[in-house]
C-alpha cells in the first residue's frame, strides 16, 4: 500500500530505548492511520486494567496516508491513548506542521510508553532518536518549553510540549504545537506528564511515495480552489477565514445552541455581541494564522494591546468563547481571550476548564463552595477577574480547590458532594462541550454514545447537520427538515453515520473544519485512493469508519465501560429553558433513542457489539 511507511517508532522511556516496528498493509486497510492506528496500538499492547497514568499506557502520535500532500486540511494529525479524564481509549486531533515532519522522518506513528526517571524530551531526526534531559524545561509553560527545545535543536524541527498542568497531571491537560494548535481534549498532556515527558521534537527529510502523485496533485489543486471559492462566497458573518470559529456564535445563538450559565439559560445578549466573530476581529485585532496548505485559515493571531489582559498570541476558538464566556456569564472578550491563552500556556483544555469553572461558580452561588475555599476569590457568575485568577490556581495545581478543579467536575463534585453532582455537566469524566442538547436532540445521542473520545462534540458531531448545515449525501444523509432537530426519527442512523464519518476523517487524517467550505466524502475518498491505491468505494470507506467505531467500542469495554455509563447523562438537559427557539424542548426519550442506536449499530440492547457484527467487520481477529 502506498501513502504509508508501514513503520512506527516505539520509544520506551523506562528502558531508554527506541525501536521501529513493521506494520502490515492490512492494518492500514482496516484502520487507515491517525486515531484508527492509535486504537490499533492500544488493542495490541494495553490490556484490561491499564490506566492513563500507568507507564504501560501508550501515547500514540499518528499521521494518516494523506499526511504530506498539498491539500487544504491535510496537515492534521492525531494523538491517542488511554485518557485520564474518561479512563478509556480516546483520541484528539491537532495540526500545524509536526505531523508533516513526522511523516518525513519516516514514521506513521510515534508510540511512547514507560516512564522516565526524570524529566526528558525526545528528539527524532529521521532515523536518529535521542532521549534528552529536560530538567531545565520542567516547570516552564508549554510555549516557553517549545521555544527552548527549538532553539536547542536547531532549524527545521517541529515540536510538541505540555505545560505545568500536564506535568502536574491535570486530567484535562493538553498538548500544544507552535503556540497554535492543540490536541485539546481528553488529557493527553497529563499522560505526557505522567511519563515525565516534556516534549517531542521531530525533523524529517524523506518523501513517502503515494499511489498516483499526478492525480493527487490535480485533485488537491481542484479541491483547494473550490474550498477557497466556497469560503470566500459565504456571507462575511459566517466566513471562517475572516472571523475564525468565533463566527459560530452568530450561527449557534439563534438556534438556542449556546451554553449559558452552566446550561441553565438560553441566551446571553451581551456575550453574544461581545464574544462573536465581528467583535473578535475588531477588538482582538485578529489576523489569519493558517496551517500549512490550508485555504480556509480558521486560526487567528490576536493582540490585546493594553490593560490587564494585554497579550499577543492565539485567538480563542468558539468553544473557548462559549465555555469560558457565556457559560460563566462573562462578556469581557479580552478577559476570555487572555484566560484562554493562559490556559494554552499551562496546557489546559478550555472546554473542560470552562465546564469546571461553571461547576465551581454554581457551587459558589449555592454556598457549596465559599470564599474560604476559593482563596478569597469572589467566584461569582460574570466575574472575569476571578475567572482569570482561578485559571492560574488550576494551572499551578494550587493546594486545595485548585488541585480539586484539576481533577474535572465529576471528581470535584463527588468529593464536595452536597448535591453538586447535579450541576457537574459531564459524562464519563469529561465535560460537555458547547452544543446545547435542547437545540437538537441528536446532540444528546451523540454525547451519550460516543466511543472515540468519550462524550465529544467532534467525534460524531451529528449536531452539525443543523448547526453547520453539513450533510453526508454520499452516505445517504442528503436532506433534513428543521423540525427534525427535535425528533428521534432517523437519529440513530444519522448518529451512527456521523460517528463513522468522524472516524474516517480522524484516521485519514484530515481537518474536519474543511467541511464548512464544502469538503465532502467524495473529496476524502478520492484523496485516500490517490494516496494509497486502495481504490475504495464509498461503501468501503463507510465500512472502514464503522470498523474503527467498533474497535473503539471494544476498547471502551476492555477499559471498563458499562451500559449504565451511556445513560448517566447530566439531568440539567432535561430541564427546559423558557426562551428562544429551543424553549420548552428537552431530549425526552433519550434512553429509548440510545437503545435504538445500539440496535441500528447491530449491537445488543446493552450496547455490546454482537459476534455477528464483529464477524461482518472482520474484527473477530484484528490484523497485525
Amino acid at each position, binding site marked *: 500500500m502506498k501513502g504509508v511507511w508501514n513503520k512506527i517508532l516505539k520509544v520506551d522511556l*523506562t528502558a531508554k530505548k527506541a525501536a521501529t516496528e513493521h506494520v502490515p498493509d492490512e492494518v492500514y486497510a482496516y484502520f487507515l492511520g491517525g486515531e484508527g492506528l492509535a486504537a490499533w496500538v492500544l488493542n495490541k499492547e494495553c490490556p484490561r486494567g491499564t490506566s492513563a497514568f500507568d507507564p504501560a499506557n501508550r501515547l500514540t502520535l499518528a499521521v494518516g496516508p494523506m499526511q504530506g500532500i498539498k491539500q487544504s486540511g491535510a496537515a492534521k494529525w492525531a494523538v491517542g491513548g488511554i485518557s485520564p479524564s474518561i479512563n478509556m481509549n480516546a483520541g484528539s486531533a491537532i495540526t500545524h506542521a509536526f505531523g508533516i515532519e513526522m511523516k518525513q522522518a519516516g514514521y506513521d506513528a510515534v508510540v511512547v510508553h514507560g516512564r522516565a*526517571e*526524570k524529566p526528558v524530551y525526545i528528539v527524532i531526526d529521521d532515523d536518529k532518536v535521542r532521549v534528552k534531559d529536560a530538567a531545565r524545561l*520542567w*516547570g516552564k509553560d508549554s510555549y516557553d518549553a517549545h521555544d527552548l527545545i527549538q532553539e536547542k535543536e536547531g532549524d527545521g524541527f517541529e515540536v510538541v510540549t505540555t505545560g*505545568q498542568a500536564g506535568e502536574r497531571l491535570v486530567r484535562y491537560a493538553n498538548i500544544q504545537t507552535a503556540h497554535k494548535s492543540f490536541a485539546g481534549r481528553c488529557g493527553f498532556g497529563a499522560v505526557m506528564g505522567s511519563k515525565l515527558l516534556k516534549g517531542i521534537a521531530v525533523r524529517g527529510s524523506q518523501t513517502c511515495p503515494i499511489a498516483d502523485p499526478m492525480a493527487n496533485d490535480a485533485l488537491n489543486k481542484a479541491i483547494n480552489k473550490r474550498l477557497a471559492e466556497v469560503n470566500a462566497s459565504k456571507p462575511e458573518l459566517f466566513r471562517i477565514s475572516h472571523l475564525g470559529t468565533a463566527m459560530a456564535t452568530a450561527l449557534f445563538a439563534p438556534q438556542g445552541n449556546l451554553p449559558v450559565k452552566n446550561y441553565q439559560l438560553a441566551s446571553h445578549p451581551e456575550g453574544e455581541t461581545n464574544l462573536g466573530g465581528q467583535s473578535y476581529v475588531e477588538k482582538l485585532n485578529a489576523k489569519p494564522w493558517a496551517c500549512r496548505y490550508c485555504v480556509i485559515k480558521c486560526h487567528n493571531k490576536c493582540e490585546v494591546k493594553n490593560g490587564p489582559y494585554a497579550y499577543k498570541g492565539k485567538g480563542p476558538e468558539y468553544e473557548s468563547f462559549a465555555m469560558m464566556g457565556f457559560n460563566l456569564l462573562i462578556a469581557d472578550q479580552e478577559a476570555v481571550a487572555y484566560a484562554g491563552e493562559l490556559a494554552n500556556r499551562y496546557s489546559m483544555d478550555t472546554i473542560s476548564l470552562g465546564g469546571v469553572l461553571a461547576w465551581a461558580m454554581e457551587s459558589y452561588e449555592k454556598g457549596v463552595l465559599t470564599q*474560604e*475555599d476559593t*482563596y478569597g476569590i469572589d467566584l461569582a457568575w460574570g466575574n472575569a477577574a476571578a475567572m482569570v485568577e482561578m485559571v492560574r*490556581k488550576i494551572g*499551578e*495545581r*494550587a*493546594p*486545595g*480547590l*485548585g*488541585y*480539586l478543579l484539576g481533577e474535572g467536575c465529576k*471528581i470535584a463534585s*463527588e*468529593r*464536595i*458532594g452536597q448535591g453538586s453532582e447535579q450541576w457537574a455537566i459531564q459524562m464519563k469524566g469529561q465535560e460537555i462541550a458547547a452544543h446545547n442538547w435542547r437545540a437538537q436532540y441528536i446532540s444528546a445521542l451523540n454525547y451519550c454514545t460516543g466511543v472515540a473520545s468519550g462524550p465529544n462534540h467532534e467525534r460524531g458531531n451529528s449536531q452539525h447537520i443543523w448547526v453547520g448545515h453539513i450533510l453526508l449525501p454520499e452516505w445517504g444523509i442528503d436532506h433534513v427538515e428543521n423540525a427534525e432537530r427535535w425528533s428521534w426519527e432517523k437519529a440513530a442512523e444519522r448518529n451512527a453515520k456521523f460517528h463513522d464519518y468522524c472516524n474516517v476523517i480522524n484516521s485519514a487524517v484530515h481537518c474536519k473544519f474543511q467541511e464548512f467550505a464544502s469538503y465532502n466524502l467524495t473529496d476524502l475518498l478520492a484523496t485516500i485512493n490517490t494516496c494509497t491505491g486502495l481504490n475504495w468505494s464509498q461503501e468501503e470507506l463507510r465500512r472502514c469508519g464503522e470498523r474503527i467505531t467498533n474497535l473503539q467500542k471494544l476498547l471502551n469495554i476492555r477499559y471498563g465501560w458499562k451500559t449504565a455509563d451511556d445513560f448517566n447523562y447530566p439531568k440539567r438537559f432535561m430541564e427546559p429553558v423558557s426562551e428562544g427557539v429551543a424553549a420548552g424542548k428537552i431530549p425526552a426519550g433519550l434512553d429509548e433513542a440510545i437503545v435504538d442506536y445500539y440496535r441500528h449499530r447491530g449491537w445488543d440492547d446493552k450496547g455490546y457489539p454482537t459476534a455477528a457484527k464483529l464477524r461482518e467487520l472482520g474484527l473477530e481477529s484484528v490484523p497485525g
Partner: protein
Amino acid sequence: MPTAEQEKRYSRQIRLPAIGPAGQDRLGRSRVAVVGCGGLGSVLAHVMVRMGVGRVTVIDGDRPEASNLHRQILYDEDDVAAGKPKALAACEKLRRINALVEVAGRAERLEAANADRLLADHEVILDGTDNLDTRLLVNEWSVASGVPWVYGAVAHAQGMVLAVRPDNGPCLVCLFPETAAESAAEEPLPIFPPAPVAVACLQATEAVKLLLEPAQVNPNLLVLDLWSGSCQQIPLQRNSACRCCAHRRFFYLTR
C-alpha cells in the same frame, strides 16, 4: 508478652520505662504505614522495623536513583542499577534486618483511588512523602477515617514535625490553610542528609507515643534547624473554621 527471642532482641528498649514489656508487646501487635520511602520514609521504615512494630507497610511508586543515595538509607548502588521499585527494594533490606516482624511493600503512588485499600487497617500513618498534595490526601484520609498520622518535611538543613490526631488537635490544613510555596520551591530541592534522619526520628518518636502513650504525644509543631542547632516548639491550635477537620470538606479524597 514478648517471647524470649523478642526479649533478647529488644532488651535495650524494653528497659525504658516508657516501653517496658507491655509496650513492646503492644508494638509487636501494631500496624503502621509509611507513605513514601525516600529520605524520610526509609528512616521511618527502618526505625519501625528495628523497634519491632508488628507490621510495617511501605508505599512508594518510584525507583531509586543515584541522586537518592546520599540520604535515602535503605538503597544502595545495586538497587539503582537494578531499577527495582523502592517499596520492594526497601522491604528486602528490612526483612533481613528483622524477620520477627511483617513487612509489606506496595509499589504504587498513593492516590484517592487506592488510599482506602492501602491505608486501611493501620493504626498510624507516617509521612515519608515529598510533596504537599500527597500530604493533603493523607491528611484528609486521616480526618475521614480517624486514624492519626505524623507529618514530617525537610528542606536544606531544616525540618518540621507535627502529629495529627483527628479526634483532637490541628490537622495539616489548620497549618497550611492557603496556597503554599511548593510550586515555587527550588528544583531540585537542596537537602542536608542529616535533616531527614533527624526529622524522621522525631516522627518515629511521636508514632511510638501514639501507639503506647497517646497522652504523651507532642501537641506542638516542631521546627528544627540542624545547621544552627535550633529546635522550636510552636503551640498550634485546631482551627475551628478549618475546611478539613472542622467542616470535613475534602478536596483530595472522595467520600
